């Protein structure tokens, strides 16, 4: 039965709230924004048809408050809620509270969110659907001898992880039998120190894995399809920085195998609406192996690259599915066309441990050029608050080839002035110009191995032109210091011939006129 949303509340902020509000307007559906005290003047508030204050700046008092959000829905007559990503988007309790309140939650049913949110239950579903998972176990007997036995069963190289942990803290790589005894002891010690619990999980180490995920759509009538892959290997501390579609590592046969695995998993889980099945990929080409990681039961940050290559608007699709519509596509009618690259523009300092930056956007000008889409929730004169994620915007470049998309992304970043707070823009350019990125030779350790050099290169000495501009602007005097805290980096900051060639006016010269 079709029951189209008549008024949609967006339980989020920033760029994703703006993105969803725009989609509502495109569909002729009135939108309701919610905001905290810190966001009273944020772009998503002005864009929506109605805006409701839901609480104080702290997320727990506002964007994470189920009662405040449902109150706002009731007061404004919203009959559907889009959760965006983060905040309450994967909170089964929120989805079921919506169901109880008679409000359509634009996402999967609460029970599905709950099942897939549990690592153990999700692995069991993958197993049942015949989808490979990374071999691993938590031995019931936690003696050193039993862990050594488990390590041999799982197969070297292995990763010892604190069972109680997360975020990569206390993980130990062990490559062979000889390093095993000492490694178990050290991993145990670190697990106890960090988490007060020495229980260890033994996992096969996937060497130089890529992170490749499959977008799926499932309707309420049992139909499932996949919208191909996104490669998200450029990440640091499990946060994605650059994503692209298609993946340079997939062949058509491997793409089909991964897509079918993702659909099998979605069917086994009783999935509804848009979701993403994340895999680790080992190797490239038809002989590569893939292993299930987890399902993200929501719209992903990086969804626009899928939209650019498939032509499908995923937010429109989510709203249609939530309204009970059947999928409008068949698998055979979907194609990937061209290439898209997304870079995440963060308020953070790459030269200083990626320290998040909060402060005013004194000058903020988005570039406008062919093949560029910018999803942002920022304005000149606005500010990046300490309370929330430091994502300022996503810049998505597309083109007929990967190389054109890459060059367009660089050209746009070079024309994306953000002043008043530090951003990672120059660091993003360095990533896109790195020979390994250019050739598509990337894995999830890319920023661990190449990051230091990229960070140094991204923060060169102040060039004479910048000083001249400062003087023309009326800078008090010629007392000009190098960026404080920076070491002298003359050798690395000097542009190589390769980098100089990537100047946008040169690389895109062929596209003029």
């Amino acid at each position, binding site marked *: 039965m079709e029951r189209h949303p008549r008024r949609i509340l967006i339980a989020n902020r920033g760029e994703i709230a703006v993105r969803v509000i725009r989609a509502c307007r495109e569909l002729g559906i009135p939108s309701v924004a919610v905001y905290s005290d810190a966001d009273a003047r944020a772009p998503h508030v002005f864009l929506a048809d109605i805006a409701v204050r839901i609480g104080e700046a702290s997320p727990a008092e506002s964007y994470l408050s189920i009662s405040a959000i449902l109150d706002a829905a009731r007061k404004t007559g919203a009959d559907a809620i889009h959760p965006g990503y983060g905040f309450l988007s994967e909170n089964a309790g929120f989805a079921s509270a919506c169901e109880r309140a008679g409000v359509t939650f634009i996402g999967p049913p609460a029970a599905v969110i709950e099942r897939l949110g549990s690592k153990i239950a999700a692995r069991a579903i993958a197993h049942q659907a015949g989808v490979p998972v990374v071999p691993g176990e938590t031995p019931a007997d936690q003696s050193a001898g039993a862990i050594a036995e488990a390590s041999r069963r799982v197969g070297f190289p292995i990763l010892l992880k604190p069972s109680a942990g997360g975020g990569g803290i206390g993980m130990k790589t062990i490559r062979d039998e000889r390093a095993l005894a000492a490694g178990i002891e050290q991993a145990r010690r670190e697990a106890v120190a960090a988490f007060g619990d020495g229980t260890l999980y033994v996992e096969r180490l996937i060497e130089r894995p890529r992170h490749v995920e499959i977008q799926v759509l499932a309707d309420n009538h049992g139909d499932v399809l996949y919208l191909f892959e996104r490669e998200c290997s450029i990440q640091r501390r499990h946060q994605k920085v650059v994503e692209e579609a298609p993946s340079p590592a997939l062949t058509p046969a491997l793409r089909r195998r991964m897509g079918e695995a993702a659909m099998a998993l979605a069917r086994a889980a009783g999935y509804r609406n848009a979701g993403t099945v994340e895999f680790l990929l080992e190797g490239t080409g038809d002989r590569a192996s893939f292993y299930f990681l987890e399902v993200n039961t929501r719209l992903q940050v990086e969804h626009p690259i899928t939209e650019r290559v498939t032509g499908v608007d995923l937010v429109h699709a989510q709203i249609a599915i939530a309204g009970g519509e059947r999928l409008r596509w068949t698998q055979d009618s979907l194609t990937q066309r061209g290439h898209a690259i997304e870079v995440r523009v963060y308020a953070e300092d790459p030269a200083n*441990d990626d320290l998040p930056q*909060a402060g005013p956007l004194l000058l903020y000008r988005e570039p406008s050029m062919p093949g560029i889409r910018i999803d942002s929730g920022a304005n000149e004169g606005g500010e990046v608050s300490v309370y929330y994620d430091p994502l300022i915007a996503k810049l998505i470049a597309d083109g007929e080839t990967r190389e054109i998309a890459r060059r367009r992304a660089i050209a746009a970043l070079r024309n994306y*002035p953000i*002043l008043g707070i*530090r951003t990672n*823009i120059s660091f993003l350019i360095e990533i896109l110009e790195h020979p390994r990125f250019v050739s598509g030779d990337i894995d999830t350790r890319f920023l661990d191995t190449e990051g230091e050099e990229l960070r140094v290169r991204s923060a060169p000495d*102040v060039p004479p*032109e910048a000083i001249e501009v400062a003087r*023309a602007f009326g800078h008090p005097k010629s007392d000009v210091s190098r960026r*404080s805290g920076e070491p002298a980096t003359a050798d690395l900051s000097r542009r190589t011939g390769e980098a100089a060639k990537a100047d946008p006016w040169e690389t895109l010269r062929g596209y003029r006129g």
Partner: protein
Amino acid sequence: MVETLGHGRFLVSGSRKPGVGSQIAYAVADRARTWVFIEGHAYVIEGDDREGHARAHTTDDQMALSAPMPATVVAIIVAPGQEVAAGDLLVMLEAMKMELPIRAPRAGRVKTLACREGELVQPGVPLVEME
């Protein structure tokens, strides 16, 4: 050559880079500093009153390490009395959904730990004292 175009925009010509003609640069004032953006790089040009650049951890003479902004303690890696080397991870914080590692600024011994896992800590309040 720099020409003022208005609205924070500047035309920079005669660049050192061969083959590159003019570029648009941007500038804005922030108290005593001037921010300049050229070709993807943002530069902060300090005025007379130099402000210290925000650091991942602030260190005073007694080597007390504190959070740079309101943050949650995710993990405490070291124990009081433990010897650490420069750069060792001491405490992992999280703020704005990002991990903020607090590392030893130099070799020494952990004297006291003044935080708990899960605790919300404020900037400037010592978390770890070293000697």
